[in-house]
């Protein structure tokens, strides 16, 4: 009875896991299949081909999009970590006028759904003349309220005597932040880094609004436009272009799986 139940449990889990993994495996294999084979259930193509990738690469600037995505996501992640931690440090550990107001405003920002500010932000970008620039993709994301609150929460738990010691040792506030707080805050910093990077890497709606020129598009945007506009022409090509977006993430996920889960869950619960 007991073993029977265990077998049942593992079978159930295996089937469930398969439904989560198999579509991605199918997608990966489909990109290597010639058009005639895409409709089949077989996981391994009988005539493997790289044609889909060649076509995809030739028809749209995916290399450029990859660089754009990396540039945008990396810049935003670094900014959120550096600027965000500076802000969080001030909000957690320094007494200054306006601190309570800033705390309240940060909490308030999290309650406002993004759709409310989407259009006014878009008109702002238009008026600033930032349409079709990296600035439009990066600057509105330089600070992140969720990240600031998470870092602030972490910084609050670091003992005051460390700050005092560092001040007596002759450090300024920025130096205390980067040489004392940062090394002690690796867990929260890695969480913030992953969810910020992933958020930026996967974002579609905002780039769709502010970027129209193909060579400035980020990967998910180009992918969407490419697949929708019929540029792909076939399932294999469209899935091949999706692979450019998926492969780096899956590789990173394979190595940092625990950090990924913690950080995505953490950002959602806090935000």
């Amino acid at each position, binding site marked *: 009875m007991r073993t029977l139940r265990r077998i049942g449990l593992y079978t159930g889990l295996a089937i469930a896991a398969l439904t989560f*993994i198999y579509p991605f495996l199918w997608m990966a294999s489909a990109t290597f299949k010639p058009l005639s084979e895409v409709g089949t259930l077989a996981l391994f193509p009988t005539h493997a081909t790289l044609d889909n990738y060649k076509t995809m690469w030739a028809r749209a600037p995916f290399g450029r999009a990859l660089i754009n995505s990396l540039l945008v996501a990396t810049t935003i992640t670094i900014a959120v970590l550096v600027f965000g931690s500076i802000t969080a440090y001030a909000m957690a550990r320094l007494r200054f006028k306006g601190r309570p107001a800033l705390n309240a405003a940060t909490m308030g920002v999290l309650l406002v759904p993004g759709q409310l500010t989407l259009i006014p932000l878009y008109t702002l970008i238009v008026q600033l003349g930032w349409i079709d620039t990296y600035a439009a993709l990066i600057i509105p994301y330089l600070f992140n309220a969720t990240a600031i609150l998470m870092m602030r929460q972490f910084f609050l738990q670091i003992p005051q005597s460390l700050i005092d010691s560092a001040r007596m040792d002759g450090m300024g506030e920025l130096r205390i932040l980067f040489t004392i707080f940062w090394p002690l805050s690796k867990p929260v910093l890695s969480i913030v880094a992953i969810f910020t990077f992933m958020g930026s890497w996967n974002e579609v709606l905002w780039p769709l609004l502010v970027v129209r020129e193909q060579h400035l598009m980020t990967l998910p945007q180009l992918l*969407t436009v490419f*697949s929708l506009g019929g540029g792909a022409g076939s399932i294999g090509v469209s899935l091949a272009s999706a692979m450019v977006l998926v492969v780096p993430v899956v590789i990173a996920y394979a190595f940092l799986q625990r950090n990924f889960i913690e950080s995505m869950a953490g950002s959602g619960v806090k935000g």
Partner: protein
Amino acid sequence: MRAERRSGSLMAAPYAAFLLIFAAYPILFALVLVFLKWDLVTTPVFAGADNMRMLATDTRFWRAVANTFVFLSIHLPLQVASALMLALALNRPLAFRSFWRAAFFLPVVISGAVVAILWSNLYATDVGLINGVLVRIGLRPVPWLTDPSTAMPAIAAMVTWKNVGFYVIIYLAGLQYIPRSCKEAIEIEGASTWQRFRFLTLPLLLPQTILVVTLSTINGFQLFIEPYVMTGGGPLRRTYSIVLYLYTNAFAYQKMGYAATIGVALALIIGSVVFIQRRVIGNAEAL
């Protein structure tokens, strides 16, 4: 300290400025835009209550709202049930536990655009994987995304699939906090597995359930990339979402005032739905 105050203000100033420009200003300007007619090219025109009047009678908008409720009515129960089930399965001594968890979480880290493209192929009527399986076991293929009655449920199922790993983590965290003594006590009372779930686990997971419902509701109201990629809002506008309509008004029709009005209305709808949900679920527990 004077120095402390000075460094504090200096260090917080960029963020304060950022908040003013990219949070406070857009929120206020959203409320201004509601009263404007503006195509971003000519000068904005004061439109009084026109935008609101138009919204009230705009059947396309209300179609989108109704679609969202159809989406939620399928997505929410499915999401809660599947997340809870998987979490309960994972919350026992298992071999390869982190592998299972990682498998369920995999779609969460994949871009919504990719998932939408992948699933439009899986759902494809003639060459899709799902219909392939159906035909193999002797059933008739279903035109998932092209039949008005199945398109939204198909999208709801897909979104559930994409996000379930995330909510499993939330439930798993909640399950960790159920005290061992409670489980042992109810076992001594002679409760069956079902009774243990009904009278102990489920009530103690209420905070997580509220969180799951709230987050997936907000997420559901923000539905965009899936219909945008998979159906374009069709068939018969049955998968048109509110954000897709907002995007179309802003991007295709250049109606900034009206798009902003939709945004404000959406924020109000989300706020009141979440508020009502919390009330209802909270009361259910009191009973």
